[in-house]
């Protein structure tokens, strides 16, 4: 049986700056707002988090699910239209490491299958139909000539 690793995206960047400066850019409201959302709130603790606001696109709530200063911080985030961030969202996990002259940041985003699927309801009706067709096909496949 194949091993179904979760589908994820990994990207890295090397930054010519000390670890503490990079850590601050990932874990403070002003730091995040310097490169990602237009503005943010931040309650920096495991289980904390806040809201990132993207001009013209609305608010995205995020929760901190991993925090190990100054090495790892991970957020689950989702658009604020989700009533509860627990209902879905992707995970972005940032790891920091020292390199000559600076800091490497690696981000792994995963959990795309956990997002709410707006088309699922439409497919839900089809699923019943497909299942019945499948059963019919199975019966026909087994039918004698």
């Amino acid at each position: 049986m194949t091993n179904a690793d979760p589908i994820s995206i990994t990207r890295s960047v090397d930054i010519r700056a000390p670890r503490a400066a990079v850590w601050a850019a990932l874990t403070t409201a002003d730091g995040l707002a310097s490169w990602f959302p237009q503005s943010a709130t931040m309650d920096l603790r495991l289980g904390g988090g806040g809201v990132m606001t993207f001009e013209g696109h609305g608010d995205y709530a995020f929760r901190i699910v991993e925090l190990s200063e100054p090495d790892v911080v991970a957020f689950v985030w989702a658009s604020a239209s989700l009533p509860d961030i627990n209902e879905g969202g992707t995970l972005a996990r940032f790891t920091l490491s020292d390199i000559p002259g600076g800091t490497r940041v690696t981000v792994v985003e995963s959990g795309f299958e956990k997002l709410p699927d707006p088309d699922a309801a439409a497919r839900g009706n089809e699923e019943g139909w497909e299942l019945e067709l499948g059963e019919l096909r199975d019966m026909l496949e087994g039918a004698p000539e």
Partner: protein
Amino acid sequence: MSARTEPSVPSELVAVCGALSDETRWAILAELGRSDASASGLAQRLPVSRQAIAKHLAVLQQTGLVESRRVGREVRYRAIGATLSGTARALDRIGAEWDRRLAALKRAVEGG
């Protein structure tokens, strides 16, 4: 062009990732990638019941990863490569967004 892009994921990607988050469906897709097969053919090759195979094939068809066609008296299932290619492209686009964000992070921290 601003590097500030909000997180947004196309629903097709969500559906395909959901379909592929199941080990049995991966196994079915891998089998169909090797060759077309009927539901009973799959049940012979995989330690899964015919009923489970049918349910998984339904999910794979709904998400456009598999299609079926009649060959004589048999229904054969085929993996649709284009769907996985589309998924790979969507993932590449999200990866490119991260490249832009990380470049903005680099500028912000180095320039500060």
